[in-house]
């Protein structure tokens, strides 16, 4: 079963973390990524541009409305994702728990994929 791991972080908080600590976390993230790929459970993933690079699209009175910024003004913003394939929620959670940004205050949402479209 596929799960999408949505990695969120308070961008202000991230900026305030010391450079050396941020580098340390990113190094660990690299290792995490390697293990995940090697496990055969990895399907896709990406680090996203900051929320400042986001553009949001809605429709109002039949017309598209384009605005600057993410769709929700929350403290934690989506920073990246991993699409994984594993047996059940506990396995997905076990993988998600190893995401290094959690230690520094990150939040990971684990969402089951109802049905996907193979590439």
């Amino acid at each position, binding site marked *: *079963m596929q799960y999408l791991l949505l990695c969120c972080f308070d961008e202000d908080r991230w900026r305030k973390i010391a450079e050396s600590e941020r580098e340390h976390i990113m190094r660990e993230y690299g290792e995490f990524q390697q293990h995940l790929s090697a496990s055969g459970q990895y399907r896709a993933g990406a680090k996203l541009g900051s929320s400042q690079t986001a553009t949001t699209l809605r429709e109002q009175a039949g017309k598209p409305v384009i605005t600057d910024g993410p769709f929700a003004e929350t403290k934690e913003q989506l920073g990246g994702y991993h699409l994984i394939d594993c*047996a*059940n*929620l*506990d396995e997905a*959670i076990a993988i998600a728990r190893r995401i290094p940004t959690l230690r520094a205050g990150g939040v990971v949402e*684990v969402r*089951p994929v*109802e049905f996907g479209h193979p590439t």
Partner: protein
Amino acid sequence: MRDVPDAVVDIAERIDGIYRTESRRIFATLIRLLGDFDIAEEALSDAFRAALEHWPRDGVPANPSAWLVSTGRFKAIDGIRRRARFDSLDDRIDEVEAIADESIRFGGDGIEDDRLRLIFTCCHPALSPDAQVALTLREVCGLTTEAIAQAFLTAAPTLAQRIVRAKGKIRDARIPYEVPAPNELPARLDSVLRVIYLVFNEGYSASSGPALTRVDLSAEAIRLGRLLVALLPDPEATGLLALMLLQESRRTARTSPDGEIVLLDEQDRSRWDGTLIAEGSALVGEALASSTFGPYTLQAALASVHANAKRTEDTDWERIVGLYDVLLRIEPSPVVELNRAVGVAMRDGPRAGLALVDAILERGDLRDYHLAHAARADLCRRAGDRDAARESYARALALAKQEPERRLLERRLAELRDDIR
């Protein structure tokens, strides 16, 4: 004129008895075999219906539970196959076909594990705490939705929805039906213990209300606690069971005939249940003997010290404070600090306890906690500072929400006024 032969009546009674004692166990196994709560529930009813039909003719089988599991499973698979012919979108057929070939593991270990699986699944942290409680009472304890709703003073449809959503989450997010791996066990067990203790406290502090129609939640919690300890001999599980038994032992002494609160130091200890105290105390000893006991065990140990004091004056306050010291190290909290301060006051005098309580309040903790002000008031009163006592009782009264507690605080205030005359 007898319409129904004695044999049938006897068998029906026998089946009734089996339902009462075994149905939860059989249900847990059916969930494992069929992979779905609702299918398993239907299978359970079908199995018992079949028993009512066949056993009068064929006799009661040597292993009734095995027969019921086997029959329930067969009927469920049969039902799914038949539905699949009409509804080709039912993709469960593949999973069930796979399960159908699996041998049935039950008897002894198999069934015991299944009930443990069920408990851990119902208490999975991915479910909301409310859902964990509702699901556990429904699926593990077998209470009806109506009984659970009534016990928690919730509307039945609300509770039914909560359970439906929980089962949906289990299915859609694929929460596995398993006992957690050893490295996950402590955290997952925490969740289970929390649910059980929540249910116990719901029953413990509930006012009488329509008492006869409300299910005894404390009894259910204790039953759950016993089942857990039987299936998983863990020190904290043992500690929680001990705690519940010891608190339950004081039930009748906690309220006066008028329904007023009677505090620990004023309770008629002859009304404490000696059997529960003996059992609880023994379990505390067991749990403390291990190296992995935790907060529940320590709270039980505290309760045990009180329970084994013939009179308030006989309480070993040194031991009480010592236990709070340990509890504070493993689970620091202002409330525990407060309770420790009360113990210190009993051991060293009210002023010693007062200094500790004031330190907590000055820090900014527990300012809105009525029991902190009530404790402070009590210590001031005992130290002879009646003005301070009055002020703190008033503060406590302003914060207290439950009627029996409010009446107690009002009584204390009245006593202080009477003292002056």
